[in-house]
């Protein structure tokens, strides 16, 4: 059980590596990257060991339990012993030390390894390792190469800290640290204003949600106090307390809503999702690691970790009100709006960002409809194919489109130049679209089956609509990037290319939807200074395609882990202690066929529209409704306007006016009266106290001192031996006095 008991090493190693890179990285031959890769590699090995040992632990427990059940069955004629049919109890491996102690409250830091922690640890270390390797080439020659690797290490360490945490307080620490790393890495090229703006926006928006986490953590502490008499931040204790009958339902509900706010902020859920597309200003490997595979799923992880609170607080197990609860509704809305926004993006990374938002919506929705296993399973598979897609987009911009991410201006027809990138990207797309038998199919299907099974029919529809849209926008993205004519040389014949473009694309307000945020990959800016391959698209080298193929492998096969008949995922990773009874539904062949058909329809619709030129081309130019709809999407539902101009603007105005009024009427009056009073007091003080009282005393004192000095100076003869004589005589006098009086 070495790995299970030493899981604390997993976050510790990257943390140490962070310090080493920060202080010594610049002196190393490869700028600290070698330390980062070695550290994350070590963490990955440890995480794999932990995963394997956890699976063995589950298997051993099940075998022992099976034996016990068999014995119980034999003895059933005598008495009803055991054999309840439930799965064996598998305790999480918990190790912690006291952090500090105050007034009898002991706060601990520690690791709690169970199936959920083990599998997420595996995902985080694997994707992080691949991104570390990928960045070697992608970030080559960057002016802050070392800092980049230091921040990646810190991010990995803090994400793992969050994952292994055994108490909510430690989760909070990890949560804030990953937010900080996200900020640092989004603003990696902070010299350009849009990048630092995006970093700030991401930080502040997620901070809004973090308030919810802080409130939730404190509330869950009191929840435990209410249930057991001793407050605690321990996750197991919190989960147990949520089910306790001595805790009022209202308290649990508010705790759940507070945590839900945290999830909304971190996992890019409606209405706080606006930061995630802007976060694409960071380097692409960062987008893959932080804003697709790991950090943004921290919210989902929190939801999965503290699931009993949501289960009881939002009454997930007993759907009322037509099967609506806050969590499922938020997730459902996010699925649809994220997917809709992905249609109007010209920036390949923004398409993927909105896709991520939409997929995170699936996960939150799954949690909301009681499909715990499906949510975590989707987290697991999504990490692989979305990181694959992001790294693929990075590879395209690195070698195919002069560091631009604009699909319409600088890409197109790249399939023949970059076959490896194309195929991995295509695999990722199919997996994301949910085509049988790739990873996304299994996890998305499981969400839908469970939503139906638990009585949330409305969300099955939402999921299917989302699946259609996902397939369609991803096909559009693949078309614009890899098919058609190469538009990369558009600097010379831009007019012609754009006109050609319009024939396919029913383009309105071409520039309106195009945020300039991403065109910062200006060659020579530093990021790719020694990109010596010259011009023209070409395949990326092995440091870029290697990680792509690894991720593609997982994108194809990871889903089989919980395919019907195998079902290892739920067996191994579903918590069995201090948890709710999440009973996954049986696989439904009909639903599977329906969802695949719908995904194929989505692909087909896009295919018809883009390849064959069928359908309502240029609809937005002819129809005012369609134009308005597109405009709404291009403006991102005006949410940014709402936040920055209306909410912040009105608050700023109101606060400023209020402050001005207070300034004019209250503070000025106070100051005026205070001033007049001060003048009067000053006069009085001057005439009576100062001139007569103080001056008299001071002058008198000075005179006395002067006269005394005049007398005393006669003693100071300046003759050393006279002083010595006085000294000796004085000591003699003291001795005499001592002798007389004792």
């Amino acid at each position, binding site marked *: 059980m070495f790995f299970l008991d030493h899981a604390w090493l997993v976050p510790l190693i990257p943390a140490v590596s962070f310090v080493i890179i920060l202080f010594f990285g610049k002196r190393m031959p490869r700028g600290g990257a070698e330390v980062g890769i070695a550290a994350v590699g070590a963490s990955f090995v440890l995480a794999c060991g932990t995963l394997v040992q956890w699976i063995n632990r589950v298997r051993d427990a099940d075998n022992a339990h099976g034996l016990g059940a068999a014995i119980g069955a034999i003895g059933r004629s005598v008495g009803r012993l055991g054999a309840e049919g439930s799965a064996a109890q598998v305790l999480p491996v918990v190790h912690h030390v006291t952090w500090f102690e105050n007034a009898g409250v002991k706060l601990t830091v520690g690791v709690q390894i169970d199936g959920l922690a083990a599998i997420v640890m595996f995902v985080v270390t694997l994707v992080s390792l691949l991104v570390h390797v990928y960045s070697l080439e992608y970030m080559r020659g960057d002016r802050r190469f070392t800092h980049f690797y230091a921040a990646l290490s810190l991010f990995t360490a803090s994400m793992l800290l969050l994952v292994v945490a055994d108490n909510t307080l430690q989760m909070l620490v990890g949560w804030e640290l990953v937010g900080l790393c996200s900020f640092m890495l989004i603003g990696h090229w902070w010299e350009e204003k849009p990048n630092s703006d995006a970093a700030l926006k991401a930080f502040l928006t997620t901070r809004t949600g973090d308030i919810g986490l802080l409130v939730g953590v404190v509330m869950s502490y009191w929840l435990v106090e209410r249930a057991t008499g001793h407050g605690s931040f321990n996750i197991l204790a919190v989960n147990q307390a949520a089910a306790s009958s001595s805790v009022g339902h209202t308290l649990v509900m508010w705790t759940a809503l507070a945590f839900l706010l945290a999830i909304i902020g971190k996992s890019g859920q409606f209405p706080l999702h606006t930061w995630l597309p802007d976060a694409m200003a960071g380097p692409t490997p960062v987008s893959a690691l932080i804003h697709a595979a790991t950090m943004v799923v921290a919210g989902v992880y929190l939801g999965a970790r503290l699931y009993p609170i949501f289960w009881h607080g939002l009454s997930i197990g007993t759907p009322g009100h037509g099967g609506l609860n806050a969590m499922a509704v938020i997730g459902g809305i996010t699925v649809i709006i994220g997917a809709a926004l992905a249609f109007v993006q010209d920036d390949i990374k923004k398409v993927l960002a909105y896709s991520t938002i939409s997929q995170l919506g699936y996960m939150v929705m799954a949690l909301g409809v009681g499909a715990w296993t499906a949510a975590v399973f989707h987290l697991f598979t999504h990490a692989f194919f979305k990181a694959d897609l992001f790294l693929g987009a990075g590879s395209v911009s690195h070698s195919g489109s002069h560091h631009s991410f604009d699909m319409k201006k600088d890409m197109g027809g790249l399939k023949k130049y970059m076959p490896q990138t194309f195929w991995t990207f295509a695999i990722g797309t199919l997996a994301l679209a949910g085509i049988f038998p790739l990873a996304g199919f299994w996890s998305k299907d499981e969400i839908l089956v469970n939503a139906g099974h638990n009585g949330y029919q409305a969300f099955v529809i939402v999921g299917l609509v989302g699946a259609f849209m996902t397939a369609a926008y991803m096909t559009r993205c693949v078309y614009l990037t890899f098919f058609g004519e190469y538009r990369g040389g558009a600097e010379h014949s831009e007019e012609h290319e754009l006109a050609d473009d319009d024939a396919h694309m029913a383009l309105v307000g071409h520039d309106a939807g195009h945020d300039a945020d991403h065109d910062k990959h200006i060659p020579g800016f530093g990021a790719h200074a020694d990109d010596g391959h010259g011009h023209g698209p070409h395949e990326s080298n092995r440091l870029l395609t290697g990680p792509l193929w690894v991720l593609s492998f997982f994108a194809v096969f990871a889903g089989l882990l919980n395919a019907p008949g195998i079902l290892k995922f739920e067996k191994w990773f579903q918590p069995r202690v201090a948890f709710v009874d999440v009973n996954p539904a049986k696989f439904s062949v009909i639903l599977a066929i329906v969802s695949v058909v719908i995904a194929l329809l989505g692909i087909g619709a896009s295919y018809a529209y883009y390849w064959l030129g069928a359908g309502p081309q240029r609809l937005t130019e002819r129809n005012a409704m369609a134009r308005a709809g597109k405009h709404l999407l291009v403006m991102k539902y005006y949410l940014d306007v709402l936040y920055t101009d209306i909410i912040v603007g009105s608050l700023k105005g109101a606060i400023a006016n209020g402050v001005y009024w207070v300034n004019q009427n209250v503070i000025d009056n106070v100051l005026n009266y205070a001033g007049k009073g001060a003048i009067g007091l000053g006069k009085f003080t001057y005439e009576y106290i100062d001139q007569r009282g103080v001056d008299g005393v001071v002058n008198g004192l000075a005179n006395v001192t002067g006269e005394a000095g005049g007398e005393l100076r006669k003693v100071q*003869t300046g003759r050393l031996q006279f002083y010595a004589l006085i000294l000796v005589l004085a000591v003699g006098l003291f001795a005499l006095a001592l002798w007389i009086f004792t």
Partner: protein
Amino acid sequence: MLLNQFLLLSAFLFCTGIYGVLTRKHTVLVLMSIELMLAAVNINLVAFGALHNSPTDPGRVIGQVFALFVLTIAAAEVGVGLAIVLLIYRNSHSADLDDAHALKG
């Protein structure tokens, strides 16, 4: 125990030292007199230390240790004192104490 004899010797030395400090005009002689006084003190300390020489007495070496400290301080004091004398001599071309009256009020 011959404590009295030691104390008498010490008192004699001390008085000699005081006399020297008060009457000698030459700075170096004054310094030497101060050394005599310190030596007297040391004799006192060692004598009292020797008086408490039973093995169980926790204070049995304190006198000797103090004497060692005094020797150290005396060495430092002489070093500083001679440096001052040297400077006085350089400034006033005289080692006479009566000439060093800059502190006269």
